[in-house]
């Protein structure tokens, strides 16, 4: 099954929870935008143009419990992610950014102080869409063979990669993200970024991400970020998604 945001409409239509803020009209808008972009490759998060819509969650709000509670996911998706999308739509209205895809906005606004707010909201809209797909209810375990081999080459083993990813997620100071990435030569590594920043703008291809803003875990784990990260990498990481991103 494809994890592309736009490729598995039937499964996602079913997975959109009744309490989702999405309307049918929003959902059709996403599906329509996706149809126009088929062929760009998974993960196709380069959706556009404005107004952007909150992309559907690929599972029900309770599907990641107990690692991530339904309450946390409801707020994280329905309030935080939605606010980034809504803010972005307000900020780009009437600007040259309004005709661009989300990924184009992220790239164009990165590093420009005058476009800081647009970057923050666009990048956070992208990061969260990518994060939902980085998780899956029956995650963790063994990656697909080809990815496992690449992880072995880069880290020594899948376990060593997971340890390093978790260490960066726990060690990052303040709000941000931990990432598994591939560089232009295809070499895999892990990294972490602050606030809204993301590896795309450093020429790296994201494969998986972990949100370590406190809002991602505070209701469930409070100050115990290490417990959140351990549960997440052990039981919810979506290796199939990483594998598709690797191509």
């Amino acid at each position: 099954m494809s994890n592309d945001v736009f490729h598995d409409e039937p499964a996602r239509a079913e997975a959109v929870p009744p309490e989702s803020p999405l309307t049918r009209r929003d959902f059709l808008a996403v599906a329509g935008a996706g149809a126009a972009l088929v062929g760009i490759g998974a993960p196709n998060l380069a959706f556009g143009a404005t107004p952007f819509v909150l992309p559907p969650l690929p599972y029900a709000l309770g599907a990641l419990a107990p690692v991530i509670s339904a309450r946390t996911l409801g707020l994280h998706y329905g309030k935080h992610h939605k606010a980034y999308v809504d803010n972005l739509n307000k900020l780009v209205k009437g600007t040259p950014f309004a005709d661009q895809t989300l990924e184009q906005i992220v790239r164009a606004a990165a590093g420009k102080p005058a476009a800081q707010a647009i970057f923050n909201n666009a990048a956070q809209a992208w990061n969260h869409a990518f994060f939902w797909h980085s998780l899956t209810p029956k995650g963790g375990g063994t990656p697909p063979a080809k990815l496992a081999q690449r992880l072995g080459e880069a880290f020594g083993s899948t376990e060593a990669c997971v340890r390093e990813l978790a260490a960066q997620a726990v060690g990052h100071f303040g709000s941000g993200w931990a990432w598994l990435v591939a560089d232009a030569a295809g070499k895999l590594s892990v990294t972490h970024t602050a606030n809204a920043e993301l590896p795309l703008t450093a020429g790296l291809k994201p494969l998986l991400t972990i949100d370590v803003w406190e809002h991602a875990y505070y209701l469930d784990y409070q100050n115990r970020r290490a417990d959140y990260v351990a549960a997440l990498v052990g039981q919810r990481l979506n290796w199939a998604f990483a594998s598709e991103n690797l191509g």
Partner: protein
Amino acid sequence: MSAHVLPSLPYAFDALEPYIDARTMEIHHGKHHATYVAKLNEALDKAPELKGRELKTLLQQLGSVPEAIRGAVRNHGGGHANHSLFWGIMGKGKGGEPVGQLGAAIKQEIGGFAALREKFNAAATAQFGSGWAWLSLDQGGRLVIHALPNQDSPLSEGKTPILGLDVWEHAYYLKYQNRRPEYIEAWWSVVDWEAVEANYRAARG
């Protein structure tokens, strides 16, 4: 001076209810602040020559801290100093408006308490990600409203903080979740202006 110590909270965990809830205060002080103190001490164990140095001096002269522990002192030393100040400028049944020398300075330099609140709220709301909003004295002794990311201390840029608001999500998420502006608005009801005034006088020397 021996290792840095977590100061006890100058009031009960529930003293700031309903504006800041007891559970948040307990975790914020007993876990978050305690961890900053522990990690600061852990870092300083690697630089015995800094053991007697005051926290304020460490943060004012970050450049003189050995590079190997500079990040840890900035983050955890900053976290210790910032939270210590934060507990001290809040209290039960406080709020109201600044008076005395500080009230006069706010009127003259910022345009009054309403202007202070408006500018401070804007700084606290706009701080993207973890950080603090500050009312500090600059090197010329003038009041400035500003924000800094993470646990960066105003001391490290030559300012002296007299009032600070923690806008890390851990400071408000249990009670306010994503509604940071509500937390900021509620917080004014627990600001202890006598304590802020004392900070102002001390900073003026």
